[in-house]
Each structure stands twice: as structure tokens, then as C-alpha cells.
């Protein structure tokens, strides 16, 4: 389906989760569409977040972030996010990476909470009032209960899907992103943007690459270079020049507004965006040989 239509699944006030970590495999094309649509009061649910959250925060669309990290890895702290939290404009609800994933597990199992022993002694339960102490009915041991995370919508960027919503991942991929499908299984609705739509026969021949069968997926959108400027495993590397430009622009609201004008509002569509960031010449340099089914 067209990206404009898929993005409508995200409404004002939605909670939303994204694939990827810091500056890797985020569904950036869909995120830019959300900025264009101007959906408001979003809650980002995550475990390790980066550019996708920073952009939405910088566009003023986010009221709360529940995660363990929002940053741009080697390009530094996430400037929009940092400024918004320091000014009290965005609420940050703290969990560890492990506790965050446990919350999605609870959501996936449709449990209301997940027990953990990870947090004793830390200030995380002290400042996060959604974490409560519980007692094991069998042993009397103390645990913390983490509230389940059930995103209204989870948006993934993946390598391939057929038109039924079967999502194939390249065998050679980053296991650092491997939590993506847990975030999808927990969600009410799932949008998957992919590098390429493949035939149903391709899926039938490679069922072992299907990490997210069709019953989890509500919308599939074909968006080549849809993770740009973040990376996409063995398909393409991150665009370091563009990420530097982004990190610099995000340092003040004025320069970030200009960034959004140039790279989000003005491009007519995703292909126009790809032209704005340098077009085929730049993209081919980022490409990695050897991705896909080969």
C-alpha cells in the first residue's frame, strides 16, 4: 500500500514502536511521513532508540518516550531529545534495555506485567512509578513488576515481504536488530516497510527467512532505501555525511526547522527525498554487495 495510506494507521495520541537501534535500520521513510502528517502527542515505546525518535521529538510530535536510550551512537547524544527532556517538554520514562524487551514480551503474551530481578538498588523504580514491587506467591521472593508494552502501532523496516505481509529477513543481518519482531508481535497493528516486495513464490521457497508471518502484519510498503540515512544491514551502510548534517542541524530549533523543510516537508515523496539527499550517486556508494537472497 502507499506509504501515505499506511501512515494513517498512526493517529494522534498513538503509542508507537520502531525497528532498529540508534542509527541502524529505522523505518525513516515512514517516520518522515508521520512528520508530514503532523500526528501529535505520540508515545514512543522502545528499548534502544535513536534518530527516528529524535526526529519526531524535534518535530514536536512526542509527549513521552519509554526506553533505555535515545542517542545517535558515534554521532553523539540525540540533540532534539536531549533539549526537549532538559526543558521538560518530553517525559522520559526509564527502563533498562532488558526490562524494556521484557515489557514487549509481556505485551506479546498479552500479560499485563512481566517480573524482573534486574532493578534492585537502582533509581529506576524510584523515579518510574509504573514499576511496582511484587512478591512471588510460591517463594516469597521480591521482584519488580514491569507494565506490559502494547504499542498501538509498531513500524518495522525489513528487507523483503510478499503482498500478503510475510516478512523475509536476509540471512546475513545484524543480530543487534533482532528484537524488532518482538516489538511487532506485541503491537495492535503492524506496518512493515521493505526494501523490496518479492513474489509469494519467493516466500514459499525461503520460509526459513520468514521471521514475521502474515498474521502479524497489517500493511506492507515497498520503500527502497527506506532506512536512509540509517543503515540497513547487508543492503547499505549509514550515510555518515547526512547523519553529521542532521546532528548539527538538530542542535537548535531554528536550524532543525530548516532541516525538516528541506528533507521532509519539501520533497513530494520518498523518491524526491532520495534526490534531495544526493540521488543515485550517493546511494550507490552506500550500497553493500551481497545482500538479499544470494
Amino acid at each position, binding site marked *: 500500500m502507499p506509504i501515505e495510506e499506511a501512515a494513517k494507521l498512526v493517529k494522534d495520541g498513538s503509542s508507537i514502536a520502531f525497528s532498529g*537501534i*540508534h542509527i*541502524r535500520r529505522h523505518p525513516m521513510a515512514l517516520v518522515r511521513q508521520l512528520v508530514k502528517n503532523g500526528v501529535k502527542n505520540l508515545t514512543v515505546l522502545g528499548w*534502544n532508540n535513536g534518530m527516528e525518535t529524535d526526529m519526531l521529538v524535534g518535530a514536536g510530535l512526542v509527549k513521552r518516550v519509554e*526506553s*533505555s*536510550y*535515545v*542517542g545517535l*551512537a*558515534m554521532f553523539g*547524544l540525540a540533540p532534539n*531529545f*536531549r533539549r526537549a*527532556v*532538559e526543558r*521538560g517538554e518530553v517525559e*522520559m520514562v*526509564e*527502563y*533498562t*534495555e*532488558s526490562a524494556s*524487551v521484557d515489557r514487549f514480551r509481556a505485551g506479546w503474551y498479552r500479560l499485563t506485567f512481566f517480573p524482573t*530481578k*534486574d*532493578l*534492585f*538498588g*537502582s*533509581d*529506576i523504580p524510584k*523515579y518510574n512509578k509504573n514499576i511496582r514491587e511484587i512478591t512471588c506467591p510460591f517463594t516469597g521472593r*521480591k521482584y519488580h513488576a514491569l507494565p506490559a508494552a502494547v504499542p498501538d502501532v509498531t513500524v518495522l523496516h525489513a528487507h523483503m515481504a510478499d503482498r500478503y505481509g510475510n516478512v523475509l529477513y536476509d540471512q*546475513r*543481518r*545484524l*543480530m*543487534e*536488530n*533482532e*528484537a524488532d519482531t*518482538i516489538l511487532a508481535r506485541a503491537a495492535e497493528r503492524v506496518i512493515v516497510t521493505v526494501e523490496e516486495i518479492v513474489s509469494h513464490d519467493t516466500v514459499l521457497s525461503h520460509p526459513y527467512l520468514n521471521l514475521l508471518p502474515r498474521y502479524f502484519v497489517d500493511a506492507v510498503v515497498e520503500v527502497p532505501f527506506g532506512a536512509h540515512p540509517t*543503515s*540497513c*544491514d*547487508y543492503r547499505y*551502510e*549509514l550515510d*555518515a555525511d547526512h547523519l553529521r548534517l542532521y546532528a548539527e542541524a538538530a542542535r537548535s530549533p531554528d536550524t532543525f526547522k530548516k532541516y525538516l523543510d528541506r528533507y521532509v516537508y519539501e520533497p513530494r515523496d520518498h523518491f524526491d527525498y532520495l534526490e534531495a539527499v544526493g540521488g543515485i550517486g550517493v546511494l550507490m556508494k552506500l550500497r*553493500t554487495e551481497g545482500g538479499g537472497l544470494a
Partner: protein
Amino acid sequence: MSKEYAKDYTIEELMTVRLAHELRDGEVGFVGMGTGGRAFTLAVGIPLAAVGLAQLTHAPDFIIQSGSFTNPKLTEVPASKYFITDRGVIDWKAEAFIPVYHPFELFKRGKIDVGFVSGAQVDKYGNLNITVIGDYHKPKVRLIGTLLQTEHLTLARRGVMIIIDHEKRNLVERVDYVTAPGFLEGYDSREKAGLTTPGPWKVFSNKAILGFDAKTKRMRLETVHPGVTVEEVQASTGFDLMFSGKAPETERPTAEEINLLRNKVDPRGVLLREGP
């Protein structure tokens, strides 16, 4: 046989060699993937180089879980000063490449003996902060968050802290936020908070090696690095250090250890010298 000490070594190499001596054969350590640049050296490079040295010397069966990688080939670490490519990571040779959340489960399962941490603030009881500077609700500086640092000190058997800038702003009387608990308020407060693991083991800084007093659990000066005085260490520390009289000098690396580090463990100079 008397040891032949190296005449020429960097402070990072000294820290690495002393850390290597603390790693025991058969243990499992965990370190995150890091993000490139100086933070990489700090959080990842020193522990990985220490593991490499330990594996070549006294602890061949020390296992390192480096992010998703089990015992990766350290001489081919896919990092540089600029960035870590996806392709470099995916192609990294290792015994296993496991989903990112499996290491979280290793911590819960009790499989991690040594967790390596570093952060913006460490206090006199070994509590660690990487979350905020200042009041939590009105932060002066919002830092990166939590990541998996909490579990390194709540679930690993021994927490090893790396501090590459031993300064008053990093070693503080009391952290602004306890991202990962050390000994909390000292004495038995860690156990009372429900923690069952021993907690921080040692602190390796660019000026000294520090441990924790058995009773009070306060940070305690063990050795000062060659060329550094006890007074300098105290002047760079935001709380009164415990130490008994004159702290001895940190043992220097041997010529053989430096040779191994430079030529066998980190021949490309990625781990300890901020990339090629």
C-alpha cells in the same frame, strides 16, 4: 627470574594489562558493542584488549560475550575512529552471533561473571550514573539513559569499572542518579536492597587502581600509577579516598605483555588507540 618491565607504554596499555590480570580462566565476561571514537576505547576497547591478553596468557578459556558476539576474533574488531559498518559487524568472525536480547538473558541466568562498565559519574560506594546530571526532573544535562548498565552491576558477579578521566567531576561524593547500584550507602545496604550478587570489584582509572573496603564498602586506593602521587589522585577525586598509609605503585607492564598487546592482541591499534 626477574621480570623485564616495559620502558615505553601508554596509560591505556597499563590499565589493560592490570585488568587482564584480574580475569580468571573459565569465566564469562560481557561488554557492549560500543559506538566508535573515544567512547569505544573507554567502554569496549580496554576490556576487549584485556580479554585478548588474558586469553593469550593465563586465561585461555575466558569467554567474552561482546554484544551479540561470543568470543569474536579480537584482531579483526570491526571498529574505527569514524564508524562501525553494518557489513563489518555482520562479517565479524566469532564462535556465535546471537540475537541482541540473548545477552540480557545470560545476565538473568547468572552466566555473566564479569561485567565491564564506565560512566559519567561513579561515587565513593561504586554507584554508577549514565542517566542525568543534576535533578532528575529538571536535569542540567540529559545523558544517554540506562542501556544495560544496571544489569552489569545487579546481575554480574563482578563489576569492573573503567574510568579514563579520573577527575572530580567523574568521581563524586554521591551520584545524581543511580543507574547501576554499587554498594548504595555502604555497609550492608546492597544486600538489604535485595541484591544477591557481590557488586563492584575494582576501578581502573588513568591514575590509580581502586577497590572497596570489606566492611564500609567505601572506595579504597590500592595502587597509584607510575609517575602519579597519592596527593594527585586525592586532588582529582571528589570524596575522601580510603587508603592505608602510602599506596604502592601500580605494577608496570612487562616488555612481553606490551609486545603481545601491540603485535598479537591489537595489531591494527583499533582497541587502544582510537582507531586506525
